[in-house]
């Protein structure tokens, strides 16, 4: 009798561990998916913060839109460079400022495997405000790349930047 009780207890413990294992496995999978960097709403504080965090190093801020075919080419170059070099100092900002494209934006970040970079997006209805506090002399043409020196000085360039220039800037 004691032996059958022990077996029953053993079976229930095993069931418990099985359930726990599944739960942990699901937690693990969720962990993988959520660890993919989700885009962050962009504001002045975020800009100040990202500037401060990158102070002392040469970095790139790339702005793009889902409606800009050349932007995709520059995202693809960053994807390629990421595969070749570790720790690229790149911050990526989506400028659409439109909640209707949120899913599309995340899909593109995922497609180009850019989730490990810090990704921001302009908030719906606040696109021009965001553009203006980054650079009041920029009119929204895309892609827009800012080459930022280690002392924090910004150099903006509109249009697709080629791979060699990006490599030269990002890979020291």
């Amino acid at each position, binding site marked *: 009798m004691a032996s059958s009780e022990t077996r029953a207890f053993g079976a229930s413990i095993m069931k418990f561990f099985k359930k726990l294992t599944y739960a942990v496995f699901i937690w693990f999978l969720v962990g993988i998916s959520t660890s993919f960097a989700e885009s962050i709403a962009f504001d002045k504080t975020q800009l100040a913060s990202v500037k401060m965090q990158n102070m002392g190093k040469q970095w790139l801020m790339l702005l793009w839109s889902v*409606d800009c075919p050349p932007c995709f080419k520059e995202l693809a170059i960053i994807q390629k460079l990421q595969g070749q070099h570790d720790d690229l100092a790149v911050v990526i900002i989506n400028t659409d400022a439109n909640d209707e494209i949120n899913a599309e934006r995340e899909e593109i970040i995922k497609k180009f495997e850019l989730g490990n970079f810090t990704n921001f997006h302009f908030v719906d*209805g606040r696109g021009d405000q965001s553009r203006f506090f980054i650079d009041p002399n920029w009119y929204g043409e895309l*892609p827009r790349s800012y080459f930022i020196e280690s002392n924090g000085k910004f150099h903006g360039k509109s249009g697709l930047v080629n791979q060699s220039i990006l490599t030269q800037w990002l890979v020291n």
Partner: protein
Amino acid sequence: MYTLIYRLLLCVMFFLLLFTVNKSTAAEHNHQAMVSKVVQTENCKEIEVTCAKTVTSVFAPNDDLWRLWAQNTSMYFQISIDNGLTFSDVNRVAIDKEKISARNENRPKIAFDKYQGVYLSWATPKEKKHTADVRFSYSSDYGKTFTKPITVNDDNLLTGHSFNEMLVTDEGDINIVWLDSRLSHQLRLQGKKTKGSELYIGKANYRKNETSFSNKQLANNTCVCCRIAMDYNNHGELAIFWRHIYGDNIREFALLTLSKGENSQQTPYQISYDHWKINGCPHQGGAISINENNRYHMVWFNQGDVGKGIFYASSTDQGKSLTKPISVGVQSAQAAHPHLNTNSNNIDIVWTQFTGTEHELWHQRSTDNGKSFTQAVMLATAVNGSDRPFIFKKDKVSYVSWHRPKQGHLVQAL
């Protein structure tokens, strides 16, 4: 045996736990300790014009003012009988739902004939990114019913066909122009380099039972993401004004008149010489309006080495020669997105400026064929973003249409 399995499971669990925590920590680190998550502004659920990103307005021949917008997968319209002071209830365009491009430079278009005909044209995005078809539907009963939409581009290719503009004559002759990527699509398949899109025109007349659109290429190497502008000259010929790619990504404006006679213009005239070199998307098209004396008036925006900002110029020979471009608006105040229209002796130009917190709608007028303009006047402001402003007219009065998302659609006599 069981003990061994338990231990193994515990080890696996511990490993998974550790790995997951590590991943989360790494992600947090990568985010540089920023705590703000995605802010999900609640999508506008109501079907109303304030929820639209873009609005298209035009007067019908009976003097009704129509406004049209897209929301979700439908188009909606309202009619005003008092020049935009009040509008009818919202009407859904009675066609099957489909995606409709309606943001920034892209938006549905509406036109009328003099027989109660209503004409709609729009672009519908396809499953692959940056591909779309130009679509069309016609109502013979002033918007009560619409024909089943058809695709205007006839190439059956999954490629870009977008930025459609439409003009319809009183007799129902439909002209739709759009940016088309069929050639660049084919060149890419052959491994060849491409430069921009092509400018296409499609013609049909539903009143004459010509219900499939002709497709004709008018130009190659156009900018891929700026709206096109067009108007009729006083010979009833179409003049088309668009951003072209010259040389190595020099984005300048070009003008082509589709002359009816034998001396048809083959090569577009280059209008701007601002030398804006950009391998990218300016997202800023121009505007054209031709007055009763066949003077072409044009306005555009550039950020070139030679010219920056908004410029106005006119031509008495269809663009072959041009008046000296006049700067419009305050460049340092983000003057952009100009539009213009002519009405008798008046030339009205509107554009937007931006203070850093508010958008402003500005206007100025010339009464001497563009030789001089009145001092610019600010007409309105917007706080939640700004659609492009457009001028349209009824008889001798010109109106500006300026949609301000989540704020309202402004219609004002100039």
